[in-house]
């Protein structure tokens, strides 16, 4: 098929946001042919103690796309080496290795989505479900001068969680950020959202 040597994939790089990691590379082009790729990885342990061992990626050995979701492979907070090669029938290219090993502690953490609701006097928050590695640091306060800021750690997103019992007639504000224990980092705070409970203060 006219291709003596298959070129190795180039421009390997990793995009990582909120602990989802995707390895991308420039596709190898052979007219009218479908190229497959194989991705392998090596954690720091393998590179230190078993440098001959490369582990086939969970989802991309083989794959067609010029990208690979390596989230399920990068499961420790250590540097990982990654390599890709192209195959066409019996032809295989040389391995192309990521220039710098990737460590998940470099992932970009974005402020989480949140939905604030009221059930009578109860302030309820529902946070974006970002997966089991994410905890949420929720700060909430009564909107009045000198109000004290309260903090609550919410372990899971995706379910409505009771935050505060609000006083009638007062506005209560909330902001939240994520915390990822596995890498010891947190995101920036979200926008602040406030809600108000109608009605006068009930007689004590």
């Amino acid at each position: 098929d006219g291709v003596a040597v298959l070129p190795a994939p180039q421009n390997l790089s990793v995009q990582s946001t909120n602990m989802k990691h995707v390895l991308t590379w420039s596709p190898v082009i052979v007219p009218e042919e479908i190229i497959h790729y194989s991705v392998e990885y090596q954690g720091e342990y393998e590179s230190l103690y078993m440098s001959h061992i490369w582990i086939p990626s969970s989802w991309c050995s083989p794959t067609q796309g010029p990208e690979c979701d390596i989230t399920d492979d990068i499961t420790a907070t250590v540097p990982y080496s990654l390599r890709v090669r192209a195959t066409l029938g019996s032809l295989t290219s040389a391995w192309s290795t990521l220039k710098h090993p990737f460590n998940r502690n470099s992932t970009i953490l974005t402020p989480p989505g949140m939905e604030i609701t009221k059930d009578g006097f109860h302030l309820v928050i529902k946070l974006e479900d970002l997966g089991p590695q994410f905890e949420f640091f929720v700060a909430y306060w009564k909107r009045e001068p000198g109000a004290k800021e309260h903090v609550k750690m919410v372990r899971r997103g995706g379910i409505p969680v009771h935050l505060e019992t609000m006083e009638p007639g007062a506005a209560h504000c909330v902001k939240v950020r994520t915390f990822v224990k596995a890498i010891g980092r947190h995101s920036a705070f979200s926008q602040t959202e406030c809600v108000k409970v109608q009605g006068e203060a009930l007689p004590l």
Partner: protein
Amino acid sequence: VSCVSGGLPKPTNITFLSINMKNILQWNPPQGLQGVEVTYSVQYFIYGQKKWLNKSECRDISRTYCDLSAETSDYERQYYAKAKAIWGTNCSKWAETGRFYPFLETQIGPPEVALTADEKSISIVLTAPKKWKKNPEESSISLEQIYSNLKYNVSIHNTKSNRTWSQCVTNQTLVFGWLEPDTLYCVLVESFVPGPPRLVQPSEKQCVSTLKDQTSTLKVK
């Protein structure tokens, strides 16, 4: 009782069903023996010890389960168990469980839940689940003593607004104040221990209604 081993197919799906350290060995009858009066015998093994031990109360039994709670009560140890089918002078080979580690594998049952309501609040008192014990006279061991990080996920449903929200607590009493009077609230509680994935057993749903608002009744007068 000696028998020809391998003359029968083995019991299948032999596992431990463990809830609050009550550890029941259970299995399915061998395949292809419908209508045959098969009996079973059980043995267990403490990992690291020397030999398999008979469970005398589960010798030649016709039921397909055997309570090994007493034999596996040291929850920091690990165990194996096995059962074989017997019919006349024929018996099967042993069907064996994987290694069973009660400390990590037991399901944590729900706490006892007591609800009391007044006009605008519901107080919830939780009583931690108890470890299985051999005799009722023995003193109870709360699972909180075994799992120091035991927590409860309390979810409360307002049947009028059809809203549900939850709260994760470690203490055993909590009060939801500023509720709507004369409204039915339903509560569900799960115990959970952070750590390896474990099956969870939610409590029975319990509902209680807040009382009618006394101030509005006074105005009517």
